[in-house]
């Protein structure tokens, strides 16, 4: 496991971990919803707003030039974080994963798909990777198909090969379930998609913050992600896409900064990425997200992934001793990221969450924007504990003791 010295050092980077909740030391297990922010990110945001908060591009004065340079550096940092070769791909700044998926749905799906085409999804997707495709299907006549889930909410090769076929134009799938932490067999999915000439969109909201990412290796066509889940600010995220696709796609939003020339009755578009970034962007957000990505790269994404795997094994063993806990998702550690969804026999998830809150433990409860997956499991919600680089085995011990205590109270 990452050494305790390392963890202490990491924890001291996150001011929120010095705080309390309900008078208790905070145990923050809601990283699937959003991560805490290190001081370095707050400093980056503060630096922009305090020292050079000018608008970018076309400002012929020093402060604007400084802001433009910081914004451009932020994009370059994201290239390094994601392993993007700018000759082959591009990172568009968006408000986050949801907007990134909508960008693809509107700028690609609405313009390219037709009644003969199929979009392949799964029932474990976050609503943000289902609802946009429902709209695309409704407007274009394309069909939605779903790779079947096993009882434990995983995918099998037979189901993948049976669902992705010659009419498939897009496979849009999560890189890591926000409910169960399940990491689907991306290589198999990509292989089948390629075999039929389909594109692959990876919903990286959970995956990108917990795994080393190299888009060349992932070999997806679109990768959507959020800054706030990787220690960055809220309201900023991105879309990686192959450059050739972005050049073919129509803009998503229209207005200033995305144009080449504007005439009274027609306009032409700027090159990518500006073509997809109309209006003043979230400059501070991009700078803050880049500071977060730099921070994570310094810690080491492989170290973070290894630390979380070790926390997973510890958590799994601890929960296995509680016979009233039902865990959802894969049994195999190798298929699970640092997310555990569970229910306590006869106790509603919200009630568990409220009593954990009383003991200083922050978890998420409910259906986690994944109602089709809840329907698959035959439940309405779960208690979800999700880890990140600053969590510790001691916190897991505290969480488990809190579960035991509250179960004794509520049952």
């Amino acid at each position, binding site marked *: 496991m990452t050494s305790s010295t390392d963890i202490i050092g990491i924890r001291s980077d996150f001011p929120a971990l010095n705080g309390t909740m309900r008078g208790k030391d905070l145990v923050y297990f809601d990283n699937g919803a959003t991560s805490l922010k290190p001081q370095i990110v707050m400093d980056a945001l503060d630096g922009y707003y305090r020292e050079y908060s000018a608008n970018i591009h076309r400002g012929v004065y020093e402060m604007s030039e400084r802001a433009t340079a910081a914004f451009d550096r932020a994009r370059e940092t994201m290239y390094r974080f994601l392993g993007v070769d700018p000759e082959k791909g591009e990172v568009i700044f968006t408000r986050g994963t949801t907007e990134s998926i909508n960008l693809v749905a509107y700028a690609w799906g609405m313009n390219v798909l037709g009644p003969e085409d199929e979009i392949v999804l799964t029932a474990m997707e976050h609503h943000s990777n289902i609802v946009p495709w429902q709209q695309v299907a409704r407007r274009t006549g394309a069909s939605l198909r779903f790779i079947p889930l096993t009882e434990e909410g995983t995918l099998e090769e037979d189901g993948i090969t049976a669902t992705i076929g010659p009419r498939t134009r897009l496979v849009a799938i999560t890189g890591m379930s926000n409910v169960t932490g399940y990491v689907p067999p991306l290589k198999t999915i990509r292989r089948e998609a390629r075999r039929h000439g389909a594109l692959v969109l990876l919903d990286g909201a959970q995956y990108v913050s917990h795994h080393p990412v190299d888009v060349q290796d992932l070999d997806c066509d679109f990768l959507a992600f959020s800054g706030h889940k990787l220690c960055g600010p809220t309201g900023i995220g991105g879309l990686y896409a192959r450059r050739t696709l972005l050049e073919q796609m129509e803009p998503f939003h229209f207005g200033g900064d995305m144009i080449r020339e504007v005439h009274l009755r027609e306009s032409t578009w700027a090159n990518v990425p500006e073509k997809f970034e109309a209006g003043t962007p979230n400059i501070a957000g991009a700078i803050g997200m880049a500071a977060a990505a730099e921070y994570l790269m310094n810690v080491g994404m492989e170290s973070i992934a290894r630390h979380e795997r070790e926390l997973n094994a510890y958590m799994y063993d601890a929960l296995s001793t509680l016979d009233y806990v039902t865990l959802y998702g894969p049994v195999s550690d190798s298929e699970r990221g640092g997310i555990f969804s569970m229910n306590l026999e006869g106790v*509603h*998830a*919200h*009630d568990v969450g409220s009593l954990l809150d*009383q003991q200083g433990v922050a978890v998420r409860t*409910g*259906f986690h924007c994944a*109602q089709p997956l*809840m329907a698959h499991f035959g439940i*309405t919600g779960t208690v979800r504990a999700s880890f990140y680089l600053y969590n510790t085995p001691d916190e897991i011990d505290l969480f488990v003791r809190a579960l035991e205590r509250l179960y004794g109270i509520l049952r």
Partner: protein
Amino acid sequence: MRERESLESEDPSTEWRELLISLVKRYHPGERRDLSGATLLRREVNRSCGDTVTVYRRAEESPPREPVLLLEVQGCAVCKASAAIAEKVLPLLPATQGGELCRDVLRCIEGKDPGDRLRIPSELPEDLARDLLDLLAVRRAPARRRCATLGWEAALAALALTPPDPSGTLPRHETRE
């Protein structure tokens, strides 16, 4: 309606979770009821968690038993306790007064003014009045307010669909344990 001024549950130091546990113990869900022949009047969903409260009007039987509102809950302890209190309270009141109470409960739970007082109808027995007041402690947990209001919203909507009986009173139903 008379107003109760001195309320233990209004004490800011009261820990609402303790009240929640207390309500859970007192309104622990019993066996599933027979809803055959019942008319579905209204279904409300908590969109943040998917919990539901469904209001039925029980079927008339022979010999005639007057219809009564039944609130079936798929939800958390707060939702169940709140709906169970509504189900016990509303039959004790004339329909219009029941509607007023629903609105008053919703106002007190959702309201931003912590000084809001619930006007308790004098028809309510002391224990039910106390439980109703205890329920207001959920105001201190903004994320759980909707759990408590769901049943009252559903009941209010259902009351609007239920034709008042000639006496203007919703029938009393037998105690359920």
